[in-house]
């Protein structure tokens, strides 16, 4: 590429378009290796835990799931350090990274929270009950509030707004806490009351931030 080449307006515009497209493709290509890493880990962990559970009839093997984010995070760090490719980051790569981080934080917190709840409510760690509690999360209300919180956190990632990121987390996990406390009774509607209040509070914080 030469710095003194005379270009027409069409050539200049075409150069800009081509450069932007090639850069976007390059950044997308690079994200592939992390999908491979996490996909491999997920496949291996699910199969190993399935086999151990099946062979020993012990649901406690599910605790191995906690090892997956730790191993994945360490491997991702190692891959990033050993990466010989030059560094580049755009909005798309930043948001993608943020979305998966938000998902990871939500998933780990829900698991830890469920085990802690089981321990507190029983006064002892009964893993069989913990698994039952985890299964009971498959309530429509609990699922909706978790997705609601995750969506709000993702919006925070996209807009680079910490208030939204935290509010989403508080809504999702707080909503789940209300669900555990109230169960399937009509009081579970308080989950949405809580989600609505957090949403209003977030709106107020954002309004104040950009006043």
């Amino acid at each position, binding site marked *: *590429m030469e710095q003194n080449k005379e270009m027409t307006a069409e050539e200049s515009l075409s*150069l800009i378009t081509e450069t932007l497209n*090639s*850069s976007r493709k390059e950044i997308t290509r690079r994200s592939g290796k992390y999908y491979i890493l996490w996909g491999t880990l997920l496949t291996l962990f699910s199969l190993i835990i399935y086999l151990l559970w099946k062979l020993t009839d012990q649901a406690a093997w599910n605790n191995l799931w906690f090892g997956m984010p730790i191993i994945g995070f360490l491997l991702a760090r190692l891959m990033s350090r050993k990466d010989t490719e030059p*560094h*580049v*980051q*755009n909005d798309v790569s930043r948001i993608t990274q943020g979305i998966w981080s938000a998902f990871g934080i939500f998933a780990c917190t829900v698991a830890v929270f469920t085990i802690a709840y089981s321990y507190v409510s029983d006064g002892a760690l009964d893993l069989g009950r913990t698994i039952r509690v985890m299964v009971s999360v498959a309530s429509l209300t609990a699922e909706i509030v978790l997705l609601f919180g995750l969506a709000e956190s993702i919006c925070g990632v996209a807009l680079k707004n910490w208030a939204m990121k935290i509010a989403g987390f508080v809504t999702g996990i707080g909503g789940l806490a209300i669900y555990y406390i109230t169960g399937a009774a009509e009081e579970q509607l308080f989950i949405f009351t809580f989600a609505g209040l957090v949403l209003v509070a977030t709106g107020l914080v954002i309004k104040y931030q950009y006043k």
Partner: protein
Amino acid sequence: MLPKLDPLLHSELRLAIMSLLAGVDEADFTYLKEQTGATSGNLSVQIDKLAEAGYITVEKGFKGKMPRTACRITTEGTEAFRAYVKALKKYIAVGK
């Protein structure tokens, strides 16, 4: 009357650098070299010119033990780039 094209941006390599930086948060010197196919010396000279004009910032640091030069487009650079693209579109519209 057609607007004057920014001479700093109306150069193949400098325009490619600005186009690359306009689409990213930041990019390494080596990434710019890889994408533009320019030589290190030539690229370095053009980056300095853009930095002197305040269109980009250049930050030298380390990634692990390896030296790293990170480039970012500035607000002034983004505005100049937008104005340049707007002017180009006018030139093309007149030519049609």
